[in-house]
């Protein structure tokens, strides 16, 4: 027989280890925030607020106006969501409610594949094939525009939106559908009047998660949006080059001197991104959270 004390000790050790690993996620979030603050806070002392929230980002001239970057991110993200949400929700409806089995068997793996394609590969595709196509068909001076970036981003957000929306549709009780059909509505009417409204909160979650994904996307956006830090104020801004917060960090961090104002400013943008995605995900999470409880055998 095994030594009983030995058993108790190893059980205790393992339990402690697992608990520490369980808590580590909180630790990592705090650590990430801490280090962003540590490297980013100085910029708020080195650069005046009017400069920081100004309209011109020219670090070489000590102009650190983040407004064009923020608006660039917003422009690209919102456009992407506007494209992705109808496409994603209808695809989810198609997959869950309408598609014959064979179509489902083709669609689901394809969407998984899309989720797996590295963003730099999509960026490369966007640069070499999509951008020239956009330029020629729409007759713009360049194909590297906010719109091109939004197109790529929309597809990158699609897998998230589709899978969360699918779960939401799945969670609508069958009795709703039956009631709809029993009242003489066609399947089509039932879907749009009963099922989709019933899945509304889940679809909102899907949209928010897709938005979080889009706003944080870096490489693809950097490669196809043209990276001009200008205020997107005119109506045709969407068809002109733009620059996002993420792309700015990725493009410039490699070239700055550690400890310079520019360096701290890039971390400052990082703090902003962190907080933005934190809020978006928090909002999405509160709609997901369900109290879980594990019972025993009855």
């Amino acid at each position: 027989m095994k030594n009983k004390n030995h058993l108790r000790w190893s059980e205790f050790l393992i339990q402690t280890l697992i608990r520490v690993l369980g808590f580590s996620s909180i630790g990592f979030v705090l650590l990430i925030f801490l280090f962003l603050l540590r490297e980013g806070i100085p910029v708020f002392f080195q650069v005046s607020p009017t400069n920081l929230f100004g309209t011109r980002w020219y670090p070489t001239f000590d102009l650190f106006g983040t407004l064009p970057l923020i608006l660039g991110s917003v422009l690209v993200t919102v456009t992407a969501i506007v494209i992705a949400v109808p496409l994603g929700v209808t695809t989810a409806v198609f997959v869950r409610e309408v598609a014959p089995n064979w179509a489902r068997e083709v669609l689901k793996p394809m969407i998984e594949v899309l989720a797996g394609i590295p963003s730099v590969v999509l960026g490369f595709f966007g640069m070499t094939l999509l951008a020239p196509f956009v330029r020629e068909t729409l007759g713009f001076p360049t194909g590297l525009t906010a719109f091109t970036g939004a197109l790529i981003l929309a597809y990158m957000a699609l897998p998230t939106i589709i899978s969360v929306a699918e779960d939401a549709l799945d969670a609508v009780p069958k009795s709703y559908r039956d009631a709809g059909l029993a009242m003489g509505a066609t399947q089509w009417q039932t879907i749009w009047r009963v099922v989709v409204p019933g899945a509304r909160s889940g679809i909102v979650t899907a949209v928010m998660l897709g938005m979080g994904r889009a706003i944080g996307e870096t490489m693809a956006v950097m490669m196809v949006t043209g990276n001009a830090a200008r205020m997107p104020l005119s109506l045709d801004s969407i068809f002109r080059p733009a620059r996002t917060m993420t792309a700015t960090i990725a493009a410039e961090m490699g070239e700055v001197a550690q400890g310079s104002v520019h360096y701290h400013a890039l971390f400052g943008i990082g703090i902003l991104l962190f907080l933005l995605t934190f809020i978006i995900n928090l909002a999405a999470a509160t709609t997901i959270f369900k109290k879980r409880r594990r019972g025993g055998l009855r």
Partner: protein
Amino acid sequence: MKRVLMQRVGFVLLGLLALVVVLPILLVIGAIVARGAQAINWEFLTAMPRNGMKEGGILPALVGTLLLTLGTAVAAIPVGIGGAIYLSEYARDTWLTRAIRLAIINLAGIPSVVYGLFGLGLFVLFLQFGTSILAGSLTLAIMTMPIIISAAEEALRSVPTEFRTVSASLGGTRWQGVRNIVLPQALPGIITGVILGLLRAAGETAPILFTVAAFFLPRLPQSPLDQTMALPYHLYVISTQVPGMPADVQYGTALVLLALVLSLNLIASVIRSYFRRRREW
């Protein structure tokens, strides 16, 4: 009837929209495979880049990506699975547990470039690992962790509670039940999740930009504290930073990266469907 006709038309429309989702995916893959295949040969995979990366191969980038993925696996798997075991088997429903779940959702949502900043601040500068495989792997590992935790927790939870109860009723401690019954039963699901996490790490560029990636370094890394080239960054470099780059080399690199990631994807789904069919409960 008019309503039935409307439904018909509606369904066809939905199908067309689904096609709008799928066709570009096929287009991306098709274009890259068609053009990249011409560039790929034995030399391309096994030689050092030459002549400003315009000739030769991509060996150091390929090896670098494999090493980074390996490093990520070593760091992320134990922490990820341990965290999942905690959440599924030990955690009670308290505010602390909810805080952990929130942290995981948050970690999963942090932009990859912000992970890059964090890795730079903590691993490269504060801990003085320098731009190195070590710093890059750890950065990628923290990014991968929430994916592994969520997938592993789901796999663990799908194992029927009854097994745990039976194990306990036979004098098993909680950990014994987990190790002997729950973990083996959840293993296929966990492996699938791990692979999905790692393929994400293998394809990411932004987190390694400032933590490990070398622009051009035509030799293989000698230690975990070395810099290395990596496939995703290499693709970025040769498609945006080097003028006059032959398209073949670009497409070839893109294809190798895509093939690596998609084959991992395939392995994951094969494991998943194989074991789903085989399990007894």
